[in-house]
């Protein structure tokens, strides 16, 4: 559904392209993950999806329509996106915050419609935040905050969900809860596109992984295709081995000590 087609992105007044010739596809019904070292261009792709950076060449399209031909509103109705960092300037009540997801569905002077209310309630239920709707955003823990943001994206609707590092700063339990939620959402025929550093979890949950290296696509394929020791060692420039998790059967990356311990 979300497709990057030979995309080249360059920041203004920058000599070098931030990413070049990226082709990848995030279909409905699956989690597609974008991984790669810091600075490899992951967030640049997200910025391009937000329309904040226009492709120098190539095209980003939603179901075949280039987003350059869509307004921000039209894009927002189809793709809900959870940016990496977000801090409201003034504290909000959780329910009000989730309701902001409905922006693309309302007019200038229209208040909250029954459809909005239903979408908000459903999203809160789905993301498991229904019990703290009246709390303020500043009172939430890191895990709660991420779930509230996902709830807002769900209230936004659309067939695609894009998340930029949704589990940063979360402990194991909260991290797993987020991945399970994303897995369930993907099974409901949504396209889930996920930027993450959590290679091992991504390998368990994603259908396909795009591995970025210095702005280029080092590999794009199934977890088994991408989670290869030689490939990851080259991309991350760190000694590592990939084995297979005996419990769940997914490939597991184990970084090694750079120098063998004495």
């Amino acid at each position, binding site marked *: 559904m979300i497709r990057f087609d030979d995309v080249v992105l360059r920041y203004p007044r920058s000599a070098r392209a931030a990413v070049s010739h990226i082709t990848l596809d995030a279909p409905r019904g699956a989690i597609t993950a974008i991984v790669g070292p810091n600075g490899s261009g992951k967030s640049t792709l997200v910025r391009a999806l937000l329309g904040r950076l226009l492709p120098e060449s190539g095209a980003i399209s939603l179901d075949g329509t280039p987003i350059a031909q869509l307004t921000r509103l039209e894009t927002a*109705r189809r793709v809900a996106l959870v940016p990496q960092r977000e801090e*409201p*300037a003034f504290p909000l009540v959780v329910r009000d915050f989730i309701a*902001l997801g409905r922006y693309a569905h309302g007019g200038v002077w229209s208040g909250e419609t029954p459809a909005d209310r239903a979408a908000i309630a459903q999203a809160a239920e789905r993301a498991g935040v229904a019990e703290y709707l009246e709390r303020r955003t500043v009172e939430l823990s890191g895990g709660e905050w991420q779930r509230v943001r996902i709830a807002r994206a769900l209230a936004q609707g659309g067939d695609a969900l894009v998340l930029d590092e949704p589990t940063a700063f979360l402990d194991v339990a909260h991290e797993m809860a987020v991945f399970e939620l994303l897995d369930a959402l993907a099974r409901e025929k949504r396209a889930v596109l996920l930027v993450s550093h959590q290679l091992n979890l991504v390998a368990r949950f994603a259908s396909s992984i795009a591995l970025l290296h210095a702005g280029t696509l080092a590999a794009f394929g199934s977890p088994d295709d991408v989670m290869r020791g030689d490939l990851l060692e080259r991309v991350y420039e760190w000694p590592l081995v990939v084995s297979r998790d005996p419990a769940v059967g997914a490939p597991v990356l184990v970084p090694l000590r750079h120098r063998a311990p004495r």
Partner: protein
Amino acid sequence: MKPRVYVALLIALALAALAGLALGPVSLSPAAVWSALFGHGDPNAVSIVQALRLPRIALGIVIGAGLGMSGAALQSTLRNPLAEPYLLGVSGGAAVGAVAAVSLHYSSLAFLPIAAFAGALLAVTLVLLVARAAGARGDPRVLLMAGVVVGAFANAAVMVLLAGESADSVRGALWWMMGSLSDATWQGTRWIAIYVGIGGVLLFALGREIELLALGEDPAAALGVDVERATRRVYLAASLLAAVTVAGAGLIGFVGLVVPAIVRALGARSVRSAMLGAAIAGGALVVGADVVARTVRAPAELPLGAVTALIGVPFFLMRLRRMT
């Protein structure tokens, strides 16, 4: 915000207006004020109440509403609880525009706001450019620094414009730069109210966008806002409001800072309710400050901007401490 908070704000506004009617350099009994309101009694009292105090209160309400709404919108859009037209140098820019218009002999209150608006837009652009050049548009302190710098520049520009004028005109211009409602007339207030109305409607129309911009540019874009366009429109409308207040009553600082904060503390949940509350509370604050300005040193009058600064600066320092 709960309806009873609006009612409380309206009561505060009504009390300020009543004080404005009843108090002044000339002391009139409540009965005299009451009959003067309906044109009865001592003709001098009628003149004082109808021609001097009423339009002054009306202008104060309009100016306060403009400053309050402008401050509330700028704080959310710039994601900065210290943002307000005066500290951002926008009012200073408007003053340059207005002084330039006056020195070219275009001083009607129909035209003055437009000249002030042009100056305010120039100042906003300059502030954002300076903040961007400093490489930290997100840092609230850098933005304020840029505002202060542009404000100083505006001050200098006003002085240059006034260099050839007589000492009396310079004194008049300086007096006006300190803010005053003493020139309030019904006719002028009508023009100011029209412009404030236009700016207010524009800002309310942008209410949903402002709400999202307060989350940050990326989240706003993700939710469907055309960030550049929406931001530009907010600056336009907020600058219009600031410029109109400057054209109508000179530089009155800190109202746009204090009032939105009070309204938020009273439980304003959305930007629109914050703007509505700030409009009412702004009117109450300006009218109240004006009562102080014209009574404490009667028969002389304090500059209104000095009174609001005396209230606003301690408030600003408290906020700054909490931020850093």
